[in-house]
């Protein structure tokens, strides 16, 4: 990959939480990936795999029970973890923005949409209230909200869910960030609205040449939007590659299981694959490969931690048995 195209690099990121007994929960343990300019990547995984914590850690907004215990987050070469809180505030919103899952709770109910967008604009740009209001109106138009001027003076409860998410996007884009983190941006919306919002994000990304990190557990969304996919399991990356690689040549048993557990229209399936067992307790992750207690390919080798292996061009997998993945095609997850 060409270095000058790199926008964001996360290297060996570790975010640990501490409960009241002082036990360590390794919610994110050595996660690394990169994002190029104008590219969309997807962070995929089950709930609790650490994908949301990773995204909050990029903005250094992990809540007070958690601590970033190691790693580097490089934005165009600058390590965000070494910045002061004040410098970090400058980065938030201006360089990296975030949109959230629940548009209805991500907007403050006591202010109008306009007030909130204007606040975001004035925060990072030297504009008068009047200019900011004009910019806000343009932003609302940009995200496809009809009657933008009127909407500026409406309160969040007067808007539909899709409109609210559009307003959130307008807010997040108010300072033309380089990176947009979208944490399950469509999960709480109707299916028809989902597609519209995703299209909107895609189009704005092209217009503004942003890098987008899409956090989701919805593989349909991933297939539609992401150029590259990072699959996470139990606080670690298990596989990383282009959309094509991940969807057509998964090499980690977990990725394989994930893909085969969703119904498909184009293939005749007798049964959906079920990954047996549950996500391990974060206080008590298995040693070595964290997927091993649910994996049909498990053996003694799995007691040691798998290393990152490049199996094709920029397709990485963390599994000792990635070469045996074909076995799953015939016998599935049953042992």
């Amino acid at each position, binding site marked *: 990959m060409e270095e000058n195209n790199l926008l964001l690099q996360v290297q060996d990121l570790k975010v640990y939480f501490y409960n009241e007994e002082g036990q360590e929960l390794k919610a994110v343990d050595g996660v690394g990936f990169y994002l190029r300019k104008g590219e969309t990547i997807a962070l995929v995984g089950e709930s609790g795999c650490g994908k949301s914590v990773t995204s909050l850690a990029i903005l250094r*907004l992990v809540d007070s029970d958690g601590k970033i215990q190691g790693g580097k987050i490089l934005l165009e070469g600058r390590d965000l973890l070494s910045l002061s809180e004040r410098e970090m*505030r400058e980065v*938030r*919103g201006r360089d990296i923005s*975030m949109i959230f*899952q629940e548009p209805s*709770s*991500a907007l*403050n109910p*006591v202010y109008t949409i306009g007030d909130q967008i204007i606040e975001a604009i004035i925060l990072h740009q030297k504009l008068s209230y009047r200019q900011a209001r004009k910019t806000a109106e343009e932003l609302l138009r940009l995200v496809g909200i009809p009657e933008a001027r009127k909407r500026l003076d409406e309160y969040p409860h007067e808007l539909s869910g899709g409109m609210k998410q559009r307003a959130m996007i307008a807010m997040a884009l108010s300072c033309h960030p380089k990176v947009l983190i979208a944490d399950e941006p469509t999960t709480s919306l109707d299916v028809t609205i989902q597609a519209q919002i995703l299209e909107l994000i895609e189009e704005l990304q092209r217009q503004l040449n942003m890098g987008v990190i899409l956090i989701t557990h919805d593989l349909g969304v991933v297939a539609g939007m992401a150029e590259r996919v990072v699959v996470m399991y139990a606080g670690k990356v298990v596989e990383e590659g282009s959309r094509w690689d991940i969807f057509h040549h998964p090499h980690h048993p977990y990725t394989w299981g994930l893909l085969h557990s969703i119904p498909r229209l184009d293939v005749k399936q007798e049964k959906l694959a079920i990954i047996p067992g549950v996500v391990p307790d974060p206080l008590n992750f298995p040693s070595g490969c964290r997927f091993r207690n649910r994996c049909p390919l498990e053996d003694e080798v799995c007691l040691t931690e798998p290393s990152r292996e490049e199996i094709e061009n920029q397709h990485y997998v963390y599994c000792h048995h990635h070469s045996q993945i074909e076995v799953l095609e015939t016998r599935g997850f049953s042992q």
Partner: protein
Amino acid sequence: MNRETRRIFRRLSSDASAILGFALLIFFVIVAILAPFIASPPPGRDPYIMPIVTWSSNPLPPSPEHPFGVAGKRDIFYGVVWGTRTAFRVGIIVTLISTALGLLIGSVAGYFGKLWDEILMRITDIFMAIPFLVAAMVLTTILGTGLDKVMMAMTVFSWMGPARLIRGNILQVKEEQFVLAAKALGVSDFSIIIRHVLPNTIFPVLIQASMRMGSLVITAAALSFLGVGAPQGYADWGALLNYARNWMLGGQGEALKYWYMTVFPGVAMVLFVLAWNLVGDALRDAFDPRLRL
């Protein structure tokens, strides 16, 4: 906003006790504003000191000259009218300062949590453990008499309620996603508290403050009654009751002989407290989203 305001007005105006509360409050406000015309003070004197109208220290029953009677050589009517101003002053100033103090302490404790919360809330607990009236009395005795000292003493011991209330509310609101969203936009902690957290938590505090307004006036009166409050002759309902202290049991076989000494200031006080409580109740109902139809 318009629709919301109209809705609140509609609810307030359809509630009989709300109307009564606001009517009483407006009545007291008018009395306080028009005090110089209702009971004109002697020229060149401090109007807050009740003028001496007789040389006998015996109370006098109501008469055309002194419609509420005379106590401690002073006109009760004058005292009740100007006492309204004192009541408002004590109530509003103490409530404002103690609420502001409580807001500050509660917001810091709630928003920053951890050690801040622990230290500030333990201090709050200590203050709450001290009996309010006794503490205020002791402090007033130390500071010396005077209305400002009374207000200071009451402020020192009445910020804990709002502090706890606001802390609890902030703990709840700070978990809301819009707080995280604001942080993700780079808003500073200070503006998050001021702009995003407080406006979502302030109503219960304001309602509580309006209810506290009444009870603070009672406390101030109690201090005056006990003789550690307003100075001699100051127009204050509690001070009027203080004059009645020696006559409360009546005399010469007539238990209710000096009724006017307690009834007029007492009724004023009861109505004043009632007004604030009704207004507080009405506001709570009007702003409570669970009661929305």
